């Protein structure tokens, strides 16, 4: 069972503001989905290793040679941010005064 408190805590963790009504709906929906996925309990997994990557993830190396520089900041990337100043993204203060 997932409680209203769980939903409020999760919403705070994932930084999503939710209303009272939304909390209720989320509680119902998550309850419904979790009861559906609970069927996995029945699967016999024994000593199977968990699979994180289907085709095997390998480290990709390249020669230590200079290459034409890919623009670290393509034109427009910083300007696409909601607020920017002098090619920097500007944000509200982190600490309260």
């Amino acid at each position, binding site marked *: 069972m997932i409680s209203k408190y769980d939903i409020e805590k999760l919403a705070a963790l994932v930084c999503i503001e939710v209303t009272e009504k939304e909390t209720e*709906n989320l509680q119902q929906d998550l309850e419904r989905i979790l009861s*559906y996925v609970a069927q996995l309990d029945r699967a016999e997994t024994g000593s199977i290793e968990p699979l994180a990557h289907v085709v095997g993830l390998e480290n990709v190396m390249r020669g230590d040679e200079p290459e034409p520089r890919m623009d670290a900041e393509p034109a427009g990337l910083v300007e696409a941010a*909601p607020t920017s100043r002098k090619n920097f993204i500007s944000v509200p203060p982190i600490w309260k005064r």
Partner: protein
Amino acid sequence: METVTSALKAIHERDKEIHAFLEVYENDAKPQTAQRQGALAGLSIAVKDNILVQGKHVSAASKTLEPYVASYDATVIAKLKDAGAIIIGRTNMDEFAMGSSTENSAFGPTKNPRDTSRVPGGSSGGSAAAVAAGMCDAALGSDTGGSIRQPAAFCGVVGLKPTYGAVSRHGLIAMSSSLDVLGPITKTVADAKKIFDVIKGKDPFDSTTLETRNLKPETQDKKEIRIGVPKEYFTSGLDPEIEASVKKAIFSLQASGFRLQDISLPHTDYALACYYIIMPAEVSANLARFDGIRYGLSKKSDDLLEVYTKTRGAGFGKEVQRRILLGAYVLSAGYYDAYYAKAQKVRALIKRDFEKAFENVDVIVSPTTPAPAFKFGEKSSDPVEMYISDIYTVSANLAGIPALSVPCGATKSGLPIGIQFMGRWLEEETLFEVGQKFEDLRGNYSQTGGCD
């Protein structure tokens, strides 16, 4: 293939009603500016709104990214442009590719061109509808659990979900990184192959891409392609009209010389539940970047944390919020082993089912969807009901194998039916071969109705 002119004409005539496009690039799509050279010279291609096209808006059909403009081309876009294709516009989708009907688009749903009272499927619903309505020659979609194949089946067009890693995702707005793959939605199997050949291949900007050149399918030297029919895909949840149509198609393949074999993929029943743990877990991580600081929407506040919470509260729709919370839950301490670690083990079993099956067969055949296109609102009240439309498609994503949906008929009321061919890792060629052969057997699929 349509010319750009006739595609634009179809858009002007029908898109007000269908709403396949979020934006049409009229100025870029003039026939006189069309390139004359390249494998895709002059072809008009519509692009799902989660793929970056330099200088164009890209929103993933979310309020969160409504004002956002892409600062570079996705690798697939650069490759299409190099091959002479014309990017004709960006297509509607479920917000951040989460949904199976386009009803989750923040900008209103797309209608199915075959029956406008019904959904086109999703999440690449705009792309499939645009192809079905002749508004472009082909389209790009993304497929995480069926988002190319399910709308292709609902709209009566061809959809290819390539092998995981066969196509670069540089410039795709990520949803679930261990599952996402880009692919074409087209009118014919030959077109799907043509586009796949252009967009596939290793990309230095995407470390998950695989080498696809000179890959020789195991079937190449064999005369006979063996087709496996998994019993788990023909059970009680399947619409009888779809079952009849797909079985008829399978027998026609057998009559033309393919060898059929009954097979079993014993962990099929767990696939959807497995998917609905792994996918939201990855969603919750991937969507953390949309915080009101770097992209799109930003709700003003003096307090930084409030910028995050207010922006994400206002910008994300219901389904997106639901999946982010669910993902955070299954990854949280105390539940991780019961949900996420368990799902990863089941995923290993699902992959193993396919490995075993492909020891004896070259292609696995199934329906693409358990039911034809549904009506608007029919499944939006219960999230699990909606998820079930992906029941036959998620396994290919979990295992990473390629899968192709081809129209195989229509219901009595004229709704398209899709047949799905799944192949070994990186053996798209075999799928094209079987798909093409099936198209020949099936005859021309009418744009307005079913086929014989």
